[in-house]
């Protein structure tokens, strides 16, 4: 499993509680706990801590992937 696949799986199954997501999937509505789960998932997959304000600006899964440094 690639880092991108790992992050998308965590977003889908841990945060959004759906089978899968695509880069075009919109994130709304995420609560404060969901954002922290996303931070954990990004740090687990990419070993990086993202700025919370930038993460909260993300609208789609693709935005999160870009923030993690993943070309989309």
């Amino acid at each position, binding site marked *: 499993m690639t880092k991108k696949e790992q992050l998308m799986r965590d977003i889908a199954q841990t945060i959004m509680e759906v089978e899968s997501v695509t880069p075009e999937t919109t994130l709304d509505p995420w609560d*404060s706990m969901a*954002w*922290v789960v996303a931070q*954990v998932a990004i740090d*687990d997959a990419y070993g990086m*801590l993202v*700025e*919370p304000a930038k993460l*909260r600006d993300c609208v789609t899964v693709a935005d999160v992937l870009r923030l993690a440094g993943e070309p989309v």
Partner: protein
Amino acid sequence: MSAILGVVAAVPANRVPTEDEKFALATGIKERRIKSEGQDTGVLGTIAAGRVLGAVGWAPETVGAIVCVTQTPPVRMPATACIIAGNLGIPAPAFDINLACSGYVYGLWVASHLPFQRVLLVAGDCVSEMVNPADPGSANLFGDAVTATAVDNSGHYPSITFALGTDGKGWQHLVADYLIRMDGSEVFNFAAKCVPDLVHRVVPPEGADTYLFHQANGMMLRHIGRKLGLTEVKMPMNIQRYGNTSSASIPLLLCDSAITESVKHGTLSVGMFGFGAGWSLAGAYMKLGPLKVAEVVEV
């Protein structure tokens, strides 16, 4: 040199389960103890302190000082330590330290450097007084508990290694004026960035038998554990039963976790790591046990 002789935690008997299943799953918090009418930090602290004094065999008049770490004093004046001194008849210097989740280790550092053989360290909060019911992120997170630790400075013990620090730049992300305002994402970044480094600064290369982390949030702790390569056996948790109890959480681990029996009957190398409000953090490494008492008292 100094040593912990015994620890007692006083917790309210009132159990409040976490109704939000998703929150419980993420944080690991299944229930918390919330104070009842007539209970406060001074009341719980007096009960814990009285119990630990009896268990270690210290008469009140032999206590050299009382240090109380709390951010929820029952009154603004006097210091909670003075109230506890009065309640227990301890004619000794008594003062408070205003710190939250890093506070137990700071208190231990202060207690072990005071020029008295016997020091009583009280640490804990009734954080439920400060949570905003409209903010489930904090309302479901915090529990009430106050602990008392008997610190012996008689000089017959191995030294304790301490590391203390503050990066106050993030203080505004975890604030209580009247109610707590917390940005959980910022707290996570602070902890994930700073706590592994704190552990490496305190624990010797051969490692510790057990790592006692402030019980901030189960998801955060598991993540820090992964970063450090620690198994769950090495880092006991009890956040599922008490929630985040601020400065009480580390001593509460001594009183009620997978290591309680081990520290009551044997000696362990122990790392303690507190971190939180004010972007304050503190670590300690010591040989601990056998303790004369390590127990929870329901009030």
